[in-house]
């Protein structure tokens, strides 16, 4: 369980703070991880997406390695996804995480 936030990291309010649970929470957890650059949490500096690592992988156009990196993250975060799509177009990488009945999209530009 966690407090629910929207895509701009605003807390969801409905007379009180709203909570998020199960798949929704997993999605939020992944979302927060992907939006947190590694080293930005003072109490856990190892935690967060290693952007420079991802950028390196994009530069060498290694789709397989990017996928492996993302799967590792998903395993660490204990998230149940069905599938994972990664596309690299010019300088942009777009990632789609397939949850049961839901998706989470992400784009990283160089």
């Amino acid at each position, binding site marked *: *369980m966690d407090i629910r936030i929207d895509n701009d990291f605003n807390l969801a309010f409905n007379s009180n703070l709203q909570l998020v649970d199960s798949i929704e929470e997993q999605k939020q957890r992944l979302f*927060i991880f992907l939006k947190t650059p590694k080293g930005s949490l003072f*109490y856990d500096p190892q935690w967060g997406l290693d952007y420079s690592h991802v950028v390196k992988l994009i530069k060498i156009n290694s789709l397989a390695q990017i996928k492996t990196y993302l799967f590792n993250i998903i395993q660490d975060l204990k998230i149940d996804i069905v599938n994972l799509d990664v596309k690299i177009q010019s300088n942009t990488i777009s990632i789609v995480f397939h949850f049961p009945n839901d998706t989470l999209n992400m784009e990283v530009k160089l």
Partner: protein
Amino acid sequence: MSILFDSDFGILKQNIKQIVETKRENLRNMHRIVINDDPTSIYNIIATSLAIIEEQIINEVNILFSKISPGGEYFKAIEDHISIKSTTFNAVHKALTSIDGIEYANIISTAGKANIYLILNESLLDSTKTNIINSDFKAKLWETLYKTIPSGTILEGNINIDGLNQQNQLKSYKVSLGVRKYVYLKVKYQLDLQNHIYLNIDSRIRDIYTRIVNNNYTNMGIKFEYQDFFAPVNEIKGIKGLKIFAVLKDDDKTQIANINDSEFKENQDIDVKPEELLIFNLADNLFIDITS
């Protein structure tokens, strides 16, 4: 449930991790909201950020409490401030007797004038016992007087205590040395029944007098009241009456046996000046006798 305060232990000393854990435990117990110990959680991000401030507050409050608790830095400062700058008789007396070397003090004041009498440890005095030779002690005494004596009060006495204040102004005070007066006592008691055996009357009278002296004659300027010494009539069964003979001497070098009976005053109070302190030596200078 309180995170900062505990009614039994006061302020709880906790670090950031402990604070966040306590909060999660609170949520779980009170609201059944289970949040894992996981940096991914937005709750943990928020709670940890707040806990940084809370930890600082806890630390500051703990420091504050340690300062204001008895013996703490702030407590001591307030104590000094109140006691040394207060000018009641009690405060001045306390300030004076807390100086190392002052054994007894008495303050007599009339409008605008005051006499301070001190009985000092003899090591601070010169050979004639009339002057203070220890300059450290004089400096401490001056500081206490400077902080306790209201301006406009003239001190009278025969010893000058001079000093410069922070503005380099000369402030001088006067004090007098107190005088020790030695009490020689003769007690003659009368018994109810001549043939009864009474044990240890002598030592029981000495015990009663020790108690009376410790209770009643503890400071300077207390006059000798012969009725204080009638207590054995009441407390020891078999004593019918007492006669109290007393004389004061300036030193204790005379033996009680060598003092002429005519010097003793029978059943009379003896006046004591404010600068005088009565000293009883109930071992050597008390003579107890039976009379028929």
